């Protein structure tokens, strides 16, 4: 190596370079604009085109929103106020909000009942959704279905009480016999619950007061967004546990259980929901013993739950399949039995993987509850298409009504989606 070369390689820093801010083009808003909107001439063109489209939409929508009329009693009156100007006729919402939310038959002096049930829903859902809350709060969740039923349907308080007692009796029967054998506990639970419901049902019918504290509202009077919420909340909360059971059943070593689950899942997934709803509405009556009337809402809940639980089962099966076999083996080798291994090791991980898929189905299910308008139930969409648009006052108000329906559904669905993303972040433990 020559001397000159060695000199050019060797280097010792004499003075320190103080830190300085990046040039203006490389920071803040300017940098962001350059990188995201104007990084190349093609992107710049697209940005300008997009801005133009936004402008067009704003020009069309903003006056419509701003000029909106809120206080008239019919579409004709709206048009008179607007005098040919562009403007929405929001008065349909202020005039018919009660029908949109509760249907047109629910007694208007009783609106506070579903209102309270709705507020209590948050209290009931919170302990399930947020693990950091004390576990004792789950008692509210367990009692909520009975409270909500009583509030919304009213009638004699004995009905929800007997239902609750049936579950308690079933649990006691299960706890008594499960130590001997799971099957014995299972059937004891069913027998105890059925017996309680049968006897309790007879007693409740015999002593039902003529004028109960809360006026009874029959199922056919339920409507509006309340009906969507009833169906959505009930079906989601029933179909997730059912889906888990179906997914586990599909993996079972016992052929009878396995094939029952496979046939159920494949059959339900192969049939459109609307067909199942028609079955619930019309055909199911043929299969029931004559004289028994089976509540229509209950029939619809059963059908939607079956439908979505089949889908959820498949999503969870994906989560189960994604777990390495070693997790099952580690659980086994530590001596955990099947229910423990599933509950403590397999399901927490499989469900975590399945969250996006489950939420996807839950959101879809919630929106699918509007399909019941096809079997002449007056849910939110049914109310709009039926009583409101058919009325002489509001015939022709489409944008405002369907926009309102879309907004209500969007708020709920976006909320669910945001919650699921938060949950995924909470549950991430940095494993590969």
């Amino acid at each position: 190596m020559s001397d000159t070369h060695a000199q050019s390689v060797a280097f010792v820093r004499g003075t320190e370079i103080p830190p300085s801010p990046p040039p203006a083009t490389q920071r803040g808003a300017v940098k962001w604009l350059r990188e995201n909107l104007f990084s190349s001439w093609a992107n710049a063109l697209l940005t300008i085109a997009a801005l133009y489209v936004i402008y067009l939409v704003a020009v069309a929508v903003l006056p419509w929103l701003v000029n909106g009329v809120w206080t008239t009693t019919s579409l004709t009156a709206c048009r008179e106020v607007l005098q040919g100007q562009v403007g929405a006729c929001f008065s349909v919402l202020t005039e018919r909000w009660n029908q949109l939310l509760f249907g047109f038959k629910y007694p208007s002096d009783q609106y506070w009942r579903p209102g309270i049930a709705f507020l209590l829903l948050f209290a009931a859902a919170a302990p399930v959704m947020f693990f950091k809350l004390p576990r004792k709060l789950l008692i509210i969740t367990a009692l909520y279905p009975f409270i909500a039923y009583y509030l919304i349907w009213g009638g004699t308080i004995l009905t929800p009480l007997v239902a609750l007692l049936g579950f308690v009796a079933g649990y006691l029967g299960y706890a008594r016999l499960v130590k001997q054998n799971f099957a014995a506990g299972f059937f004891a639970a069913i027998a105890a619950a059925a017996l309680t419901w049968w006897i309790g049902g007879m007693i409740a019918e015999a002593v039902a007061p003529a004028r109960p504290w809360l006026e009874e509202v029959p199922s056919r009077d339920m409507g509006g967004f309340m009906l969507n919420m009833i169906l959505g909340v009930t079906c989601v909360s029933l179909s997730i546990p059912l889906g888990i059971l179906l997914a586990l059943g599909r993996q079972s070593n016992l052929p009878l259980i396995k094939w029952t689950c496979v046939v159920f899942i494949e059959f339900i997934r192969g049939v459109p929901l609307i067909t199942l709803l028609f079955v619930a509405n019309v055909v199911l009556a043929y299969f029931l013993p004559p004289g028994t009337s089976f509540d229509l809402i209950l029939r619809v809940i059963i059908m939607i739950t079956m439908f979505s639980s089949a889908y959820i089962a498949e999503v969870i099966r994906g989560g189960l399949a994604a777990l390495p076999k070693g997790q099952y083996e580690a659980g086994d080798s530590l001596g955990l039995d099947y229910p423990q291994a599933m509950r403590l090791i397999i399901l927490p991980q499989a469900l975590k993987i399945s969250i996006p898929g489950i939420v996807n189905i839950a959101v879809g299910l919630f929106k699918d509850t509007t399909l019941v308008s096809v079997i002449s139930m007056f849910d939110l969409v049914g109310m709009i298409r039926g009583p409101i648009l058919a009325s002489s006052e509001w015939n022709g108000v489409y944008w405002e009504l369907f926009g309102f329906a879309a907004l209500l559904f969007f708020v709920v669905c976006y909320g669910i989606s945001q919650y699921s993303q938060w949950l995924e972040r909470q549950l991430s433990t940095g494993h590969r």
Partner: protein
Amino acid sequence: MAEAQMKVSDEVAISIRKMNKWYGSFHVLRDIDLTVNRGERIVICGPSGSGKSTLIRCINALEEHQTGTIEVDGIKLSSDIKNIDKIRREVGMCFQHFNLFPHLTILENCTLAPIWVRKITKREAEETAMHFLEKVKIPDQAHKYPGQLSGGQQQRVAIARSLCMKPRIMLFDEPTSALDPEMIKEVLDTMIELAEEGMTMICVTHEMGFARQVANRVIFMDEGQIVEQNEPEEFFNNPKSERTKLFLSQILGH
């Protein structure tokens, strides 16, 4: 040398008689006869596919055998699930890929089975867990998740997790083969310490240094059969079968 202190009792811990296993029509384990006394440390080696992992996985019924008998601690292994769980409680196992539960912290990994299977209180379980985590020298990681630890640390946690069940027998299924060279030593040190305390151990491993130092019997398997077994000194210096010689020359020859 530590070996001198390690006593082997006459009590039989594991006894395998005429055990055969097939995967479909493939005969993986053929007429296995093996008796392990309490306190024995056995190393099983052999080429891949020779059935050595399958053999130790049969001992805690992760794999089912078709004929012959396996007796662990006097309990005969049958297809009865209660029987199997009883054996699994007495037999700890470490896997090649650690198989820690990634959704639980290190401490929760260690306390889960004692709480749910041994039914001890959470506090007691945590004390035991901390004791064993100290033993494998990672008590300070107790509240981290497995994904935040290195491979060697994870394997040591896996050992601690098994020990928390207070097993009388430990099975190791290639515990170091998924590890970087630097981490192998820390895991082997833990295993050596365990051996010195008199734990009955069966290790499937290719760490021949470990075998020489710790094992009191080395078993060589090929094609589902036990080809040769001997004390380590004799086994390495004076192998009898041609197949063993070939195997040893290949793994020690570089």
